[in-house]
């Protein structure tokens, strides 16, 4: 039949597809609606992701702070090499450190843990520092003892411009407020920060050991220079310097990029779920639509249309619909970008603008096309069953989904393409694949569940209860909407409950560390000489304080058994952070209470001159390390070899003091060190920050509660966003159900009429619908809860590695509200079939 697709034929098909579509769009409105909603969500996710990434790419240099960054981490670095680079580029030096700042009023003084960045006049090399009042940024360079603080510090400490604050033991004048800085990625994104002139370091007489200084040199290439050549030149200069790390704009904000990737992958999966649920409804609506057109199809066949022509007309209609819907969905998704912008620019200081991308549009269109084709193949193939000879006999059989071997193959093929489209290029392909597996498993289980209930009810011995009898009849009849209701509702509810359980577990895990185990305060930067003063001060405030003071030193792992670990341990290794940069380590006489030894022995006291190392068991496993292996550590520039003598089980979640590496005290005590402390007070109000800072000005105090509130705040926002988005799947499910009810409407109307004639009261009909609903809903909820428990358990325990707990309240509340909404919807859609007008119906029959 190669002549089928002659151009003129195609014209004809297109023309009739258009006519049919224009005349019938009301009958397939639910297809239009569900397809639009799910494509709109997908478009919104992709558009916002694209716009964000474009913003990151466009501002990569500003985010990094230059064309290249020379990062020496906690040491000043090799200035000779830096100066060599300065010969052919522009360099801006900066040093970051954390410290306390506090107000200097008569009373009620407050303090805040702050990240201060000292910058020179060249800062920023790219982008601008938005600040108030104008010119304040010049003041910090020209006038000593001046500082710019960010908006949050300004508000929290209720500062005024030119007010004096205390930074360690020095008085500074706040000359302005920073609205945003271009190089956000350098700061802790959600922390508080301040900018000060480059002399500040000297003014504060900061001690290298105690203040966690971070040295960076941002490099700007001369205009017209070849980027790659200059990069190469700089790389060659630092080729033998192992302390340095060179960063380029393309890896700026890599953490942020990863968050965006993961989040958008996660949301895409939710949106494709919504779309697949919509697909179930599309198949159903389309089948009923084709059933209604049964006669027209038979006539067309009698007139000499080929079956394929007619099917093509239907596919064309879907294609035309899809084209309009995807354009609308994609177009409208741009309206969401400004919303995302206001939400994000506050937190991240990014300004995103809508970005049109033909690739994104094609992807959206393709996804829609695949979903449509997958779900319409068995429906449109039903057209083959229509016989023109029916026209002579005046009977039209009811069409059923039609699966031929070929159509099953094609459907599966398209489904695989769809899945691949989401799996390939996603941040974590394996998770996506796993998600799809779980999704289809749920789908199959819900389908089987519906079959099982029908089977169960059919074999139920007849009851005398009339409403019950009627509802059983309704569920078991051939045109029952039971299977589609269970599948669409089941999938939506499962997804929502799973995410709700993941969310509450996650939130609880973070929140639960506050009251019990977590200390109230972290103290950083206690000098050896200040240790006793610190302890006395704390004890004078609260005698019953639980105080833990541990020594710390900074060290880096240079070699493991003589080999540079970075040469064979990949960046995606869970424990990469241990070798990534210098880590702080401590030592202890006794095995820490919550760090049980899993393998090996505690310190060998007979060898005090040898460095012995106790290692986190998980790190050992990740790096494949055995007892007796040798680590070469770099401590203050000195290379020291140490032997691994035992493994400890470390739980970092409790926010008390935990270290990947502990040393034997006899050896470590000889190394210059400072102290870190945590304190849990009997009553947190007993602690007076300002008194402590008067005694020890260079001390840094972190209030855990503040920190956790910030984290919980962010988590809450994310949680709400996720629940909102996953509600879409339920909404789509409900549209699918109500359209199925409407499709089934004529049957229902007739049935209710018969009941009426038989003398049923309206009450009994309503009652029977409620029974029907309860039967469906409870079986769905039961299975959905089961899946949600399994799914959330897996996510919490295996992906986040947290502790999972069953949360009846959340499940109950969500289940109840979904149930009520569904019930109201079913009643509303049923309502118009409850009051059939007897006479017209009888006349037509």
């Amino acid at each position, binding site marked *: 039949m190669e002549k089928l697709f002659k151009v003129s034929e195609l014209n004809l098909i297109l023309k009739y597809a258009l006519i049919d579509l224009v005349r019938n769009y009301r009958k397939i409105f639910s297809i239009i609606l569900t397809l639009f909603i799910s494509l709109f969500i997908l478009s919104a996710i992709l558009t916002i992701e694209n716009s964000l990434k474009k913003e990151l790419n466009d501002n990569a240099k500003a985010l990094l702070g230059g064309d290249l960054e020379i990062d020496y981490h906690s040491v000043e670095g090799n200035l000779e090499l830096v100066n060599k680079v300065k010969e052919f580029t522009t360099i801006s030096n900066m040093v970051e450190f954390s410290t306390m700042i506090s107000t200097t009023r008569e009373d009620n003084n407050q303090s805040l843990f702050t990240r201060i960045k000292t910058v020179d006049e060249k800062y920023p090399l790219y982008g601008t520092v938005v600040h108030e009042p104008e010119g304040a940024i010049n003041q910090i360079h020209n006038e000593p003892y001046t500082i710019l603080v960010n908006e949050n510090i300004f508000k929290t400490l209720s500062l005024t411009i030119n007010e004096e604050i205390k930074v360690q033991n020095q008085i500074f004048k706040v000359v302005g407020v920073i609205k945003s800085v271009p190089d956000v990625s350098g700061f802790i994104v959600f922390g508080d920060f301040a900018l000060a002139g480059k002399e500040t370091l000297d003014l504060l007489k900061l001690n290298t050991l105690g203040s966690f200084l971070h040295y960076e040199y941002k490099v700007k290439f001369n205009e017209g220079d070849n980027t790659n050549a200059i990069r190469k030149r700089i790389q060659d200069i630092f080729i033998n310097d192992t302390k340095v790390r060179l960063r380029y704009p393309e890896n700026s904000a890599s953490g942020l990029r990863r968050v965006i990737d993961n989040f958008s992958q996660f949301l895409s999966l939710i949106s494709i779920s919504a779309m697949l649920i919509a697909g179930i409804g599309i198949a159903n609506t389309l089948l009923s639509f084709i059933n209604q057109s049964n*006669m027209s199809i038979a006539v*067309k066949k*009698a*007139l000499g*249309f*080929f079956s394929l022509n007619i099917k093509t007309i239907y596919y064309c209609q879907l294609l035309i619909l899809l084209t309009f819907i995807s354009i609308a969905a994609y177009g409208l998704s741009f309206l969401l970008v400004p919303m995302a912008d206001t939400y994000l620019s506050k937190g991240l200081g990014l300004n995103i603008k809508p970005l049109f991308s033909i690739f994104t549009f094609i992807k959206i269109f393709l996804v829609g096309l695949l979903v449509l084709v997958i779900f319409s193949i068995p429906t449109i193939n039903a057209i083959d069953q229509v016989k023109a000879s029916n026209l002579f006999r005046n009977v039209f059989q009811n069409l059923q989904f039609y699966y031929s071997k070929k159509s099953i193959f094609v459907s599966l093929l398209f489904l695989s393409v769809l899945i691949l489209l989401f799996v390939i290029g996603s941040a974590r392909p394996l998770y996506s694949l796993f998600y799809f597996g779980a999704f289809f498993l749920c789908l199959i289980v819900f389908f089987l569940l519906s079959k099982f209930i029908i089977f169960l009810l059919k074999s139920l011995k007849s009851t005398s209860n009339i409403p019950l009898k009627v509802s059983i009849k309704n569920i078991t009849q051939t045109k029952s909407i039971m299977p589609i209701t269970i599948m669409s509702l089941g999938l939506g509810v499962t997804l929502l409950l799973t995410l709700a359980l993941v969310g509450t577990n996650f939130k609880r895990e973070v929140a639960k560390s506050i009251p019990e185990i977590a200390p109230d305060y972290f103290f950083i930067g206690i000098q050896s000489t200040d240790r006793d003063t610190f302890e006395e001060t704390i004890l004078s405030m609260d005698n019953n304080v639980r105080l833990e003071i541990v020594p710390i030193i900074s060290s880096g792992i240079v070699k493991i058994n003589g080999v540079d670990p970075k040469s064979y341990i990949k960046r995606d290794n869970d424990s990469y952070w241990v070798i990534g940069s210098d880590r702080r380590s401590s030592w202890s006489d006794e095995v820490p209470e919550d760090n049980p030894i899993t393998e090996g022995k505690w310190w060998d006291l007979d060898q005090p001159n040898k460095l012995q190392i106790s290692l986190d068991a998980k790190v050992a496993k990740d790096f494949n390390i055995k007892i007796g292996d040798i680590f070469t550590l770099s401590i203050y520039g000195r290379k020291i070899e140490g032997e691994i003598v035992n493994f400890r089980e470390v739980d970092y979640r409790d926010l008390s003091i935990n270290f990947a590496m502990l040393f034997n005290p006899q050896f470590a005590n000889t190394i210059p060190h400072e102290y870190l402390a945590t304190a849990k007070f009997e009553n947190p109000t007993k602690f007076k920050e300002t008194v402590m800072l008067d005694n020890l000005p260079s001390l840094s105090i972190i209030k855990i509660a503040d920190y956790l509130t910030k984290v919980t705040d962010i988590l809450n926002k994310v949680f709400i966003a996720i629940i909102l988005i996953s509600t879409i799947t339920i909404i789509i499910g409900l549209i699918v159900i109500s359209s199925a009810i409407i499709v089934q409407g004529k049957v229902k109307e007739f049935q209710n009429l018969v009941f009426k004639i038989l003398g049923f009261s309206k009450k009994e009909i309503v009652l029977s619908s409620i029974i029907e609903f309860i039967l469906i809903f409870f079986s769905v909820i039961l299975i959905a809860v089961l899946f949600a428990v399994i799914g959330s358990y897996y996510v919490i325990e295996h992906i986040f590695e947290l502790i999972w707990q069953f949360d009846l309240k959340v499940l109950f509340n969500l289940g109840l509200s979904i149930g009520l909404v569904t019930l109201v919807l079913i009643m509303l859609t049923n309502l118009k079939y409850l009051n059939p007008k007897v006479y017209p119906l009888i006349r037509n029959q």
Partner: protein
Amino acid sequence: MNTLLKLKKVNLKYQTDKDTIKVLNNIDLITKKKDTISIMGESGSGKTSLVMLIGGLEKATSGKIFFQNQDITALSEDEVSEIRRKHIGIVFQSFYLIPNYTAVENVALTLELNKFKNPQQQAKELLDRFGLKNRFNNLPSQLSGGEQQRVAIARAIAMKPDLILADEPTGNLDSKNSVMISNILFKYVKEEGSSLIIVTHDSKLANKAKRKIKIKDGKIV
């Protein structure tokens, strides 16, 4: 060489769960071009089945059916469709217009399918001839039974078929409309020189045909 249709030993059986029903038994029939044939017989005798076989809408259990010397029992469904599209017009007892197409569109559909020029224009001319000038843009639901059947006839004859099959075309109509419909059919056949096979219970109508066939229990008598 003016044979239009030739049926040779055509049998039609329907298989039901319990037994086989012999609907048509060894039917032999030859019709010439420009023939008008009426088929009469009791209800259930097999008239509709015969018409369906000739129109290629049902497969014969055995035997051969030649339409313009082509054995349509040996053709695929689509090939038969193509023959029907060009050469056979069908009129049903229950009209069967496409409900969401207007009168003009229902007629134009066949013309378009056969790639006629100006299908809308030609459809209108035809409907005008059948006295439906004021009903062009009405939907079938807005037409009376007689009007619907006239549109259906216009649809069947628009592409000037060689054979018109009409299965009790007046069965659902009152006598006044029946006369009008039969006049239209026979007048058209005469003007265009096509053939007509018409199934009817109305002997007056049957008498208009040149040749009369009676079927009883699946056999021509």
